């Protein structure tokens, strides 16, 4: 039974990997567009230009960083016995850099403050409903 399962996994493995790579490429391109607009705005603020290969470099770096971040966040959440990543996990991922952690903390407080007051009250009334609304569930692909 185990052998049969193993073959099935290996057989679908190639297809899966191809699909995975195609999806990654698509996301990488979308990510690059976002990075370019951010980097260009920042360069303009400094009266600078960024050469094209460097832009690609920065966007690939940021993409790798995002992938590592995803792994970290999942592990942090699991370690805390949660299935859902929350803001504390993101702040924890920046714990090596105090300035960065502080800046994220204040951003986090801003986000919390932005949440309408009525929303919090509703959460108190029916915790389960509030939680379900705040969490985005990921379907298993």
């Amino acid at each position, binding site marked *: 039974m185990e052998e049969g399962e193993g073959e099935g996994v290996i057989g679908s493995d190639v297809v899966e990997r191809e699909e995975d790579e195609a999806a990654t490429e698509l996301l990488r391109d979308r*990510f690059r567009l976002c990075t370019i607009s951010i980097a260009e705005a920042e360069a303009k603020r400094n009266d*600078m230009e960024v050469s094209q290969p*460097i832009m690609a470099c920065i966007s690939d770096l*940021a993409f790798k960083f*995002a992938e590592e971040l995803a*792994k970290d966040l999942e592990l942090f959440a*699991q370690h805390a016995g949660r299935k859902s990543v929350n*803001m504390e996990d993101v702040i924890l991922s920046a714990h090596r850099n105090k300035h960065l952690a502080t800046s*994220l903390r204040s951003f986090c407080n801003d986000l919390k403050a932005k949440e309408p007051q009525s929303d919090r009250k509703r959460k108190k009334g029916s915790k389960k409903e509030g939680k379900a609304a705040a969490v985005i569930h990921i379907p298993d692909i």
Partner: protein
Amino acid sequence: MDDTFDPDLIHAIFKLVWSRRAHECERNEGTEALESEVGAGTSKKNRPTSVNANALKLSCELLRVFVTEAVQRAATIAEAEGVSKIEATHLERILPQLLLDF
């Protein structure tokens, strides 16, 4: 502050990484059958990792800071050299410290 990453895009990237990891775990389970040990991990189909909407925004902010820091630091070096275009050498100079800081 106006430009930032699209939370949906970051969410899609996270999901992809997590599903990739889940598949790897499943494969290991299939070959080694370490059910008792891996059982607590991600591999179970019925427990995908999810992410809070605010946590996603915070991750976008973290990535935005990463990109702006890279550009700003490289810009400082380029400025010191008296050029107005960021080239490979400038990025090379700032890269080690940037990676240590994030």
